[in-house]
């Protein structure tokens, strides 16, 4: 039988729908998630299936409705809230950071906050400084939040089901460029095989998306795709790159990272988030702590160079890691 192909957006919407069917405690709230189907399509079809009681359009009150999700979760529901763009986190950060993330701990483990906060990340289409960020590092720095950042339709579905079933608060970051939206630049990998039945992918398991022996590329989300394209080019030059999709930052699959670095002895981090004080630093630190003697060259990182995302196309293209940039960085790493 031919494999069923879905876009990432449809895979996510299907995961949510299946869990809503399975568990009546699950409901979803957010701006434009009802009739509109979600600005990035992650909730398409849900209103029609489940009605406005379980698929709730909200006012522009992120502090209010994300806080309400926290309150509903502590009362035994399993809410999903959509923060339209991660860039808007600042208006709701207190609820995310001081409540969603900490109530379980502060209560000594007596109160659970089983909710999913899903949000869109990423740039590359000239949406500028307040609509193009990734920011998963901020939340990975925050104790108490599981951080999920899928890259493919298959992973997106399995990780979403896992997230909804998880008893902890989960932030789920989908990159606009992997959703398979009709109005974005086409990304062939944004459509892929997705089984119809529900399935889960455990958190904390990185996925080796391509095996290689000369260097390890650690990355996630859209940058998995760019890294795979770069690996292709590098292969033509005789450089064998292993591409590891971290998939979740919290929990982080240290074992897979360390194992790969011990094999290749060289590591490049590709990250669409800001460079300093974030994911790329953490990954290098872990490697330096656990595999220092295996490194044949200083680790390298390619990330947004600590500037806000500029609007103008040539500026934006200069700061977001590109396939060419990855190829170039890998070459430099091999030359060290």
């Amino acid at each position: 039988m031919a494999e069923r192909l879905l876009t990432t957006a449809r895979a996510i919407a299907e995961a949510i729908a299946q869990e809503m069917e399975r568990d009546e405690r699950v409901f979803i709230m957010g701006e434009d998630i009802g009739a509109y189907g979600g600005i990035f399509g992650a909730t398409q079809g849900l209103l029609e299936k489940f009605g406005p009681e379980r698929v709730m359009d909200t006012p522009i009150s992120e502090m209010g409705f994300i806080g309400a999700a926290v309150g509903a979760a502590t009362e035994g529901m399993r809410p999903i809230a959509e923060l339209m763009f991660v860039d808007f986190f600042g208006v709701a950060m207190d609820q995310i950071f001081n409540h969603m993330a900490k109530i379980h701990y502060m209560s000594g483990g007596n109160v659970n906050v089983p909710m999913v906060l899903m949000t869109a990340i990423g740039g590359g289409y000239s949406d500028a400084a307040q609509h193009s960020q990734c920011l998963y590092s901020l939340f990975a720095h925050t104790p108490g939040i599981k951080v999920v950042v899928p890259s493919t339709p298959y992973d997106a579905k399995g990780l979403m089901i896992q997230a909804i079933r998880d008893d902890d608060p989960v932030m789920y970051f989908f990159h606009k460029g992997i959703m398979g939206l009709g109005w974005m630049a086409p990304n062939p990998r944004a459509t892929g095989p997705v089984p119809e039945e529900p399935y889960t992918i455990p958190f904390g398991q990185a996925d080796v998306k391509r095996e290689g022996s000369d260097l390890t590329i650690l990355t996630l989300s859209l940058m998995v795709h760019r890294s795979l394209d770069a690996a292709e080019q590098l292969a033509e030059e005789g450089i064998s790159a292993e591409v590891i999709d971290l998939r979740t930052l919290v929990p982080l699959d240290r074992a897979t990272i360390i194992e790969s670095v011990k094999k290749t002895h060289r590591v490049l981090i590709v990250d669409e988030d800001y460079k300093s004080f974030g994911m790329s630093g953490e990954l290098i630190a872990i490697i330096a702590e656990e595999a220092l003697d295996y490194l044949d060259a200083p680790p390298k990182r390619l990330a947004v160079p600590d500037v806000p995302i500029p609007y103008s196309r040539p500026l934006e293209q200069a700061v977001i890691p590109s396939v060419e940039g990855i190829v170039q960085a890998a070459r430099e790493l091999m030359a060290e």
Partner: protein
Amino acid sequence: MALSRETLLGLYEMMVKIRTFEERVAEIYYEGKQPVFNIAAGPVPGEMHLYSGQEAVAAGVCAHLRPDDPVTSTHRPHGHLIAKGVDLKRMMAEIFGKETGLCHGKGGHMHLFDPELHFGCGGIVGGGIPHAVGAALAIKKRGEDRVAVSFFGEGAANIGAFHESLNLAALWKLPAVFIVEDNLYAISVPKTASTAVRSNAERGAAYGIPAVQVDGQDVVAVYEAAGEAVERARRGEGPTLIEAVCYRFRGHFEGDPEHYLPEGTKEQWKQRDPIALLAKQLKDQGWLTDEDAQAIEERMTALIAEAEAFARESAYPPPEAALTDVFVQAESPREEQSHG
């Protein structure tokens, strides 16, 4: 409608219970902090915000609540939690940071959670208001007749979460009651320097919510207003906003120098101690004698002494416990991955 003797005596007892608890906590708090005050010292370290003076609000509102009615509170939560019916032992043990505490010592005085009473609180001003909205939403979704109540200060009524929460509750017609405890100050900042209107009841109009300001030293006034609001919510008719004007007798937190208070005002307010006011009324009605009052006080003192003894005798959690409870599921659920 005149309240029954039983109701009034219940309110009286509850107020005495809260006051006795708070005053005893204050004494304990200063252990190890004299002659030199060191916030980290003594059996109860950290900040300490006590509720003495505001008892009529917690007692008057919570008298209408069932254990399963969710309540969210603030950095000044003791009164609400006691009025909700907490086990004083586990509460006191938490304040001592002991393993037997409500939160096994992880929460402390500002972060008391009692899931059996559907009670939560926290140290972020306004942070609990949206939680009450969410709890009310859960109630409505399940078609239950429970009511979610959020207590917060008049200072909190100027933070964005207040606005967003009241709008959501009104829009979705949720079974929620919002109680502003206007004790005139947010730390040192008087309401006149923080709030562009005299009464937060004027803010009900911004959401089409019935709103009223009541005398928060008068437990009967609070009881009646809260009763209407809770009933309204249980009937599915939506939220209510109540502002209760009251006063904190002990400063913002223990150690507050209170330089900012105009001279004599606290003494004036103490003339209207909510407990004394109700005692007088009860005595006038012949429903309480001095001996009764003394007996109640003694009973409460004994209860609290028992809680204190429990707390003192309990062990501290082991240091390693600091590393647990970040997540329910440190590992992923055991379900098998069906693909991939």
